[in-house]
């Protein structure tokens, strides 16, 4: 018989080690569907590793993919730390991209050092404002933000489609539902010639650092942690709980909006309704894998990006469907959630028979 007993103290090494093991376990479990697909398992994993890390091009693709995941991961991590369950990063990403396109596709013309901060500000404000709605519904009316943020994703996506079919449709777009391109002045420059990785990555890394400082060093972070861990005691101790939720909502939404700006102005150049292959939702996995640590988000985002990019390349080489990437991501989330059990509890094997007298057990 197995019993679970709560651990008193969770060591920090353990907290780092467990998600790493979870990631490895997820990759190992992926061997089952790969071999079921009839491919050579060892070759498949080598192809994945090469696809993700094997060349400057591969690493560039990996980092370009990690960029939005870092930002949506941070959006989820900040909100979840306060137990504000923002499932709406996907929608916030799209309104951020929409705002960036609205400002940056010719409406204003100015040099890059004005245009780039301008579209960033527009995107962050749009994302933050969108998240403000469910946050206020939660604090004022007690509406469950899981439901409201999730449903807003669909509202936003339909709104974006409407805009792309209507007012924001590119007249030069050959009839495709896409926006006008971001002007050259508002485009985030590429970091290296002929590679797709762009300055959005630097913005994402700086964001991670700022969020890390806010969460660990500032009064805000203190209040966010206290509110998330025990809202009742926080309120009793005079922490402005409602204001804290609003701040968290704004920051979380703004980070997701920034992900949209980075994608549209750094990578795609114009907005379409398939800008994001679920970066908002994958950000939740990233945040959970990172244990809600802002710096951990960077590592987790790179891992998840490597899985996606590596699996893409592997599927081309081995004729295994690239859905395998989604499978590994899903498996790693499950492994992390299960491993959370091992972080918080320790497992004891108890013999069901009667214990002999004076027989000491280990542990």
């Amino acid at each position, binding site marked *: *018989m197995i*019993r679970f*007993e709560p651990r*008193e*103290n969770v060591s920090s090494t353990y907290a780092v080690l467990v998600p790493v093991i979870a990631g490895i376990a997820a990759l190992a479990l992926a061997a089952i569907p790969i071999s079921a697909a009839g491919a050579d398992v060892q070759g498949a994993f080598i192809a994945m590793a090469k696809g993700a890390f094997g060349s400057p091009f591969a690493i560039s693709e990996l980092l370009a993919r990690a960029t939005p995941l870092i930002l949506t991961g941070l959006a989820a991590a900040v909100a979840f730390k306060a137990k504000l369950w923002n499932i709406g990063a996907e929608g916030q990403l799209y309104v951020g991209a929409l705002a960036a396109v609205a400002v940056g596709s010719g409406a204003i013309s100015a040099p890059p050092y004005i245009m780039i901060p301008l579209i960033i500000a527009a995107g962050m404000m749009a994302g933050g404002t969108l998240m403000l709605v469910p946050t206020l519904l939660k604090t004022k009316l007690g509406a469950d933000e899981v439901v409201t943020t999730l449903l807003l994703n669909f509202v936003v996506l339909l709104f974006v489609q409407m805009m792309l079919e209507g007012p924001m449709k590119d007249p030069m777009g050959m009839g495709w539902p896409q926006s006008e391109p971001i002007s050259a002045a508002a485009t985030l420059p590429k970091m290296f010639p002929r590679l797709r990785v762009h300055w959005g990555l630097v913005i994402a890394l700086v964001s991670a650092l700022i969020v890390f400082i806010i969460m660990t*060093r*500032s*009064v*805000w*972070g*203190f*209040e966010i*942690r*206290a509110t998330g*861990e*025990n809202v*009742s*005691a*926080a*309120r*009793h*101790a*005079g*922490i*402005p709980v409602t204001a804290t939720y609003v701040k968290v909502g704004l920051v979380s939404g703004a980070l997701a909006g920034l992900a949209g700006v980075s994608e549209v102005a750094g990578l795609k150049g114009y907005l379409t309704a398939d800008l994001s292959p679920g970066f908002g939702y994958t950000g939740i996995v990233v945040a959970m894998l990172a244990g809600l640590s802002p710096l951990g988000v960077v590592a987790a985002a790179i891992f998840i990006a490597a899985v996606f990019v590596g699996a893409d390349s592997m599927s081309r080489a081995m004729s295994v469907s690239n859905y395998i990437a989604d499978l590994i991501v899903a498996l790693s989330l499950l492994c992390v959630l299960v491993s959370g059990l091992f972080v918080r509890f320790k497992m004891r094997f*108890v013999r*069901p028979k*009667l*214990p002999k*007298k*004076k*027989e*000491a*057990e280990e*542990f």
Partner: protein
Amino acid sequence: MAHENQESGAERDLLLALDSITKRFGDLIANKDVSLELHSGEIVALLGENGAGKTTLMNILFGHYVADEGAVTVRSRSGALEVLEPGAPHAALDAGIGMVHQHFTLAENLSGLENIVLGTESLWAGRFSRSKARAKLKKLMETSGLEVDLDVRVSRLAVGERQRVEILKALYRDARILVLDEPTAVLTPQESESLFATIKKLAAQGLGIIFISHKMVEVLGHSDRVAVLRSGEIVADLETSICNRQMLADLMVGHSVETVQRTPGNPGKPFLRLQEVCAGEGREALDHVSLSLRRGEIIGLAGVSGNGQATLQKLISGLQTVTSGSITLEGKPLPAKASAAIKQGVARIPEDRHHDGIVGSLSVASNLVIEEIRRPAYQRFGLLRYGAIKRRAEAAIKAYDIRCPGPRARARLLSGGNIQKIVLARTLDQHPALVLAAQPSRGLDVGATADVHRRLLEARDRGAGVLLISEDLDELFQLSDRIAVIHRGHLSAPVPTEALDKSAVGLMMAGLEPKKEEAA
């Protein structure tokens, strides 16, 4: 009274034997080589401080935990002594062990009858026979003296009635061994008396009873034998008749304890005034409550929980507003905002210290500064001054003797007494004008309780007005300069403690008019 049972002591049957039970949680030894016997017709008190291992021991008995060493032997229904299967609550139930937990395990949305029958009917039986169950319960109520309306939903029952349902639940399952965990913690003195009368009746019928307690008075008054548990070990197992209060207290703590003595206060001018305050809803509603508190005095508010104290606490803590009437502090209206109340010098010691007092997963240091985190002492430009926070924490840990691995330890890992010391340090060190202490020693051991009492008297002597909300009459009489009673949202006028006696206050807590004139 207890001696009737002892006469037949020689022939008493052994019902239960705990044999060298040891239980470890990591490095912590919760129970060490504990042996205890229980005979038919016997009432055993298990006395010990919080954290002494009483509850762990009973959880092993009931199969919630598995002992690392040792075994439990029970007389089975067939009459033979058998080893109880460890880690199996159903085995304990089958063997006739009934447990009444401190926190009741009743489904609030079901009636008393349904709660009692719950789990005894086979899943395949279809409808259960209410009339049969009712007949059995009626007989049980007659023989035990436990009267309760079985058809009322549990959520509508008072605490004492819920406890009776719990006991009936155990008896319905033909329990022959009844374990009660801190049974009087939530009862008025009168209710406690009637509970012990019931326990005596049950013992006379041949049941073996273990009650867990840390109150010396009830242990001395109502048990045949007392086992004292200290740091997981049985340090004494004695006939109650040869024990006295001081001896048990010393055994329990391991060294002599002094209780805090109140000296006459030196009250100043009234500074907190409640005038015709109405607030809250339902059981916790306040109905035209008026009170005036002077500086340098302690007013004790006696009353069973759930009579409006929660609303009063929220009002004074700045978490709720009045519907009518007014609360003023030094002539100014009390703000309905926790942070503003703290700034005006209100120290709040909440009733539920785990839920409202501390953020368990934050560090001890964080919890020590949480009320003052925005003050320039602890932050500059919105960034935390970790050095200052650490120094403050180290000073408080030293001054209040908070036992913890260090300022960075998670507050959740501390014992109840040390958690309360965190709350005391962070509130009282701000030199408050008003101290609101709600059940400040509930669940604390003798040593920690004395510490809390000393701190409250110190605050009073510094010139603070203290509002002490408590169910514990000993505590109220020990600390209060004046005592008022709260019942169903009504507050009686405070009366100097010297002019009151405990039984009169006990009656008022139960909503009855005391016969004596001076207490009215």
